[in-house]
């Protein structure tokens, strides 16, 4: 299979869906000739023109709200927010409008839109451009939340998200954009749809389960490789989507290994990890547990600018490795 980057996979997904459905359009800041802050939409304006690659002023509430209004009336917009942190500026439109629309109007309409949101730390962008705020969105009934880890998943999940009839927040961790991975050739890609709500076991193992998503999947896999040489067989479960959540795969994995480590980059307090731990201890998997379920998350701090401090704020391959080792030595 050929290999492309995560950013290219996202661009392919958008372009293919735009060719397939003329109702799909992209809205965002600097997404035209500039190609978007991270170059994800580069070249798309040449193919689709200004009518469908719609550059906007710096008006996040209007961008997300206009997308919701367009979605309510028959289009299928994709919004590129420059940084996921800017969801704060569009929170009313996302939370009170897009997410509530169908329910509060008794199912009269639907809001098929995707908000693509570059997230996470690691670029020295400091406190207002580095957050991982996916848990906020998970707390709003009516929103779907997707956090892909690989180019393969990013493409398949984005195509499904665009075709989904609900508002989807699609978190793209910025450090993943240049990551290369296998993605089916274009001629087979029409079928490359990954359903929302289906986790993927990225590595099977019998001794301990790491439940994670996004960039932390890669760090967990790297740690699992090293642990393998010590004879510790770690299973890495990539959730892919947080809403809907594939509880069954999480519970089955916990039952199988009896030891669970939940890993995410977002800060620990109020993070989605708490929900994952509850999913396990509320289930029959509780009786299979042989040690306490642990969380390894970002510290409860804003992301700092300094490179060393920034790296220290979130889990690393090393901290995952050590935490698993500690759990296995109990």
């Amino acid at each position, binding site marked *: 299979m050929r290999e492309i980057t995560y950013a290219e996979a996202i661009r392919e997904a958008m372009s293919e869906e735009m060719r397939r459905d003329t109702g799909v*359009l992209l809205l965002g800041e600097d997404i035209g000739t500039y190609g978007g802050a991270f170059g994800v939409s580069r070249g798309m304006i040449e193919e689709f023109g200004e*009518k469908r690659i*719609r550059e*906007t*002023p710096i*008006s996040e*509430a*209007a*961008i*997300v*709200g*206009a*997308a*919701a*209004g*367009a*979605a*309510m*009336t*028959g*289009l299928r*917009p994709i919004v590129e927010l420059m940084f996921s942190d800017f969801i704060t500026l569009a929170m*009313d*439109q996302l939370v*009170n*409008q897009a997410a509530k*629309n*169908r*329910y*509060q*109007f*008794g*199912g*009269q*309409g*639907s*809001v*098929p839109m995707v908000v693509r949101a570059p997230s996470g730390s690691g670029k020295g962008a400091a406190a207002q451009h580095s957050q991982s705020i996916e848990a906020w969105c998970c707390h709003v*009934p*009516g929103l*779907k939340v997707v956090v892909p880890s690989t180019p393969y998943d990013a493409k398949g999940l984005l195509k499904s998200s665009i075709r989904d*009839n*609900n508002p989807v927040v699609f978190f793209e961790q910025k450090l993943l954009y240049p990551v290369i991975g296998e993605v089916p050739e274009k001629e087979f890609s029409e079928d490359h749809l990954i359903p929302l709500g289906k986790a993927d076991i990225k590595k099977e193992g019998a001794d301990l389960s790491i439940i994670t998503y996004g960039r932390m999947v890669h760090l967990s896999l790297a740690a699992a490789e090293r642990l393998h040489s010590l004879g510790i067989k770690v299973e890495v479960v990539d959730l892919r989507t947080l809403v809907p959540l594939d509880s069954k795969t999480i519970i089955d994995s916990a039952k199988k290994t009896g030891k669970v480590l939940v890993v995410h980059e977002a800060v620990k307090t109020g993070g989605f990890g708490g929900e994952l731990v509850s999913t396990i201890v509320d289930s029959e998997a509780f009786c299979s547990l042989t040690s306490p379920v642990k969380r390894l998350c970002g510290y409860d701090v804003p992301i700092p600018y300094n490179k060393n401090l920034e790296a220290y704020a979130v889990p690393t391959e090393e901290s995952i490795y050590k935490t698993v080792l500690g759990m296995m030595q109990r």
Partner: protein
Amino acid sequence: MHLTNTVLLELYSKMRQTREFEEMAVKLFAQGKVHGTAHFCIGEEAAGIGVGHALDQDDYILQTHRGHHQAIGKGINLNHMMAELLGKESGCCKGKGGSMHIADFSVGSLGANGIVGGGLPLSVGAALTQQYLGKNAVTVCFFGDGAANEGSFHESLNLASIWKLPVLFVCINNQYGMSTHISKSMNIDDISIRAASYNMKGLSLDGNDVVLVYKETLKAKEYVKKHGPMLMVLHTYRLLGHSKSDAQVYRAKEEVKSWRKKDPILLFRKYLLTEKKIPETVLKQLEDQAAQDILNALAFAESSPEPMAEKLFEDIFAD
């Protein structure tokens, strides 16, 4: 522009229906028959009806939380709106929305909004769809004087202006944001001057004159189809309090009294009698019919079932 008697009487009829609906709602709240809250538009009927009635089936509206007149103007089914107020399964939103979220997509009502200024960005999107698909239709976004101070007002007018979208922004200036008079919330008298900031046409009208509002909306509709968005400010007055519970200690009784003399329904009735020489019996008949329509709506609503518990989980997500 000459309006036929048919149109004039349709306008009168809808205004009377609105007034009857509102008075019934006030009564139902007083009797404790309704759970929740509602915001009444008594005194503002000319604005909502004058605009709504001038629109076509394919046009969209987005209403405010004080928007019963706006929905009636666009042609919402009264039974379904009353049932929604009572939270019934047969309500336009199946009892999930209530007064603040009245919507009927089948007549182009894309919903009332509980967030002040919340509908403005949505209206830009609805108009984007109309433009994108080449439809010969407009979107009307209703909002209040209070919403004109929200950031969404600025962002939405700016975006609609850049993209030359067919949106008619209709500000119903009833002079109060809950208890705060506009003199305390902005340093201008006429909100329509803000249109200039977006290189947009702004118009300021007597919002209690239904004939004027109707005629100007017909013109504005054609204007926005050709030239892009426009801001129309309708000056009126909220004769009742903010919501069902409001002692109105923030304004003088004389002020309210003086505006009661400018009640848009009284003014319009007088106009129909004296200027248009419509016989009083004809008006009386429409008034009786409007009252009966609301009684029928109430009977429909009261006889409708409450939603079953399992409906709690319906319509969170679309398939």
